[in-house]
């Protein structure tokens, strides 16, 4: 890796903004991992591959709502970005089938609607 100059930094900052694709973020801090975020993350990766879905699975830190871990934030075009809480494999399946594929929010699992 070449050392950055101030100019490079500015360029990296600008180049990265604006790219918006569908994604799923799993909160992977200590609290999330303790509640099973690792399994949920791996499950999403496998299922997305199996079903050949066009969605990116990302990791992020804890957003703060520790009582509802594991937290999963989903952003799909046409729907408001939402945070699902207490996600397990069952809820994760619903998120993929209902939210990502059928473009409908999943009942009883949303803890926060962003944006």
């Amino acid at each position, binding site marked *: 890796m070449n050392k*950055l100059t101030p100019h490079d930094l500015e360029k990296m900052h600008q180049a*990265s903004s604006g790219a918006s694709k569908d994604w799923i973020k799993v909160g992977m801090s200590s609290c999330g991992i303790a509640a099973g975020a690792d399994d949920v993350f791996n499950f999403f990766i496998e299922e997305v591959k199996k079903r050949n879905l066009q969605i990116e699975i990302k990791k992020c830190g804890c957003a703060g709502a520790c009582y509802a871990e594991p937290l999963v934030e989903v952003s799909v075009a046409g*729907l408001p970005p939402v945070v699902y809480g207490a996600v397990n494999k069952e809820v994760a399946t619903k998120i993929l089938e209902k939210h990502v594929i059928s473009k409908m929010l999943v009942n009883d699992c949303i803890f926060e609607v962003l944006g």
Partner: protein
Amino acid sequence: MYTKVILVKDTDLKREDKTREFYTHLLDYLRGSNLHSQIQVVRVADIGVYDKGLVIKILPDKIIYCNVQDSDIKRIVDSTLDQGKIIEDLVFKLKAKQHRLVLRNCGKINPESIEEYIACGGYLGLKKVLGELGQQKLIEEIKLSGIRGRGGAGYPTWMKWNFAREAASTEKFVICNADEGDPGAYMDRSILEGDPHSVVEGLIIAAFAIGAPKGYFYIRAEYPLAVERIHKAIKQAYDFGLLGQNILGSSFNLDIEIRLGAGAFVCGEETALISSIEGKRGTPHPRPPYPSVKGLWGKPTVINNVETLANIPVIISNGGKWFSQIGTQASKGTKVFAVTGKVKNSGLVEIAMGATLREIVMDICGGTLSGKPIKAVQTGGPSGGVIPEALLDTPVDYENLQKLGSIMGSGGMIVMDEDDCMVDIPKFYLGFCVEESCGKCAPCRIGGFQMLGYLKKISEGKGVADDLGQLRRLSLAMQKASLCGLGQTASNPVLSTLKYFEHEYNEHILNKRCPAGKCSNLVTYEIVEDKCKRCGLCVINCPVQAISGGKEEGYLIAQEKCIKCGRCFDVCKFKAISKK
């Protein structure tokens, strides 16, 4: 494609959950008006409003209606959804809101990716500092912002930096204090795990401000994931030329190293922390000289808390003036609290200084888990105090909390309801401080031990009236004579409970009763004949066979055998066991 989304949630905990019922009625009405293909109705697990009956939120208009009845469905659909009119008598305006500066990226970016941090404006603050500001203007900017240390004492950050900058020495150091040890507090861990680069950037800027070529992260080894992520962040920063020689093409050089703490609470105190980094036993030494004059290896050293450092990049990017507009007169910016205990939504809350405790606990965190009234809130961990329910409307800032006999501390906040005993709570915290006292100075080593003895005595029902006076005298001695913050503040939980809950101490001492039913020696369990349905569940569950009797004649608890574990009380479905 849906044009609108309606979120539904019943927030009344006292009755049966009506979310599903209302959801069905609303859906039926929408079908009847042929709107169901345009509007999606969703039941949510949390709607951000608490104890306001049935709440609905209409998106994307962000209209919130509370205390909605089935009879309101018609007017909501007809006027709000159809004609866009707002129904004034149902509208709910959110009072308290989180203000996320420090947690700006937590839960947003991948903490293991420097690219994502840069995409969110990361390291642009450093670029501004190196390219435009220079040392003098940087410190002026921090002074203008009014930020004070987030580790507990609230010392102005710019002053620390300025002392160290003015100190004539070729060798200087910066240290990030990530030795977070308060029971129930984990803000720093979440920041380190969720946004490590913001802390690294803050530390680089602090090093530049004083002209230090070397920095340390002091993290406790109990935070393996935080250590791993900081380690990665530092490596990435080296790879990108943000650490090492000639940072961003300037003449500034900085190396950063991680030092692991073994988990001693006292090592969060800055002089003890310095000893620990030097490889010595982690014990404090008297100040002055302050570390900014004579610190690590006897050289000028700046020690900042994780949260303070995470604030620095935003202050630089947006300017000190912008930052100073957030918060109160004397306490600027925001504060992250880790709200735990008997609260519905435990977790991290970041609010602008000046929000009230009630807003944090009731409006943001949803009140108590059990629905029982709040008794008190404990802030500041073992060094803080207990604030009673009546004072929850106090705006949170350094001075106000101090006036109430507590402290801001690093940001732990423990919510207690009426089942918590105000003799038991200080006993727990004092026990922690006695355990963690390094033993170097007598007031802390002996005073803490003696005070704990008095508290144990009172909780066992052996207290006498004079004990409270002794507790007060010992507290004063510890405050005045202890060497470091640990001993000086260890008596705060005792003093604050004595101030606000003296009647509870007196109940223990004079009437040998524990009003909260926590102190097991003062509690008796008895069977209430009238309510007992003779199910026998208590007999099966009693671990010491203290309950005798049968289905015919009823049951009796033999007090001499009872170990007061409370199993019978917990398992009885008919509330036929009394606890006094």
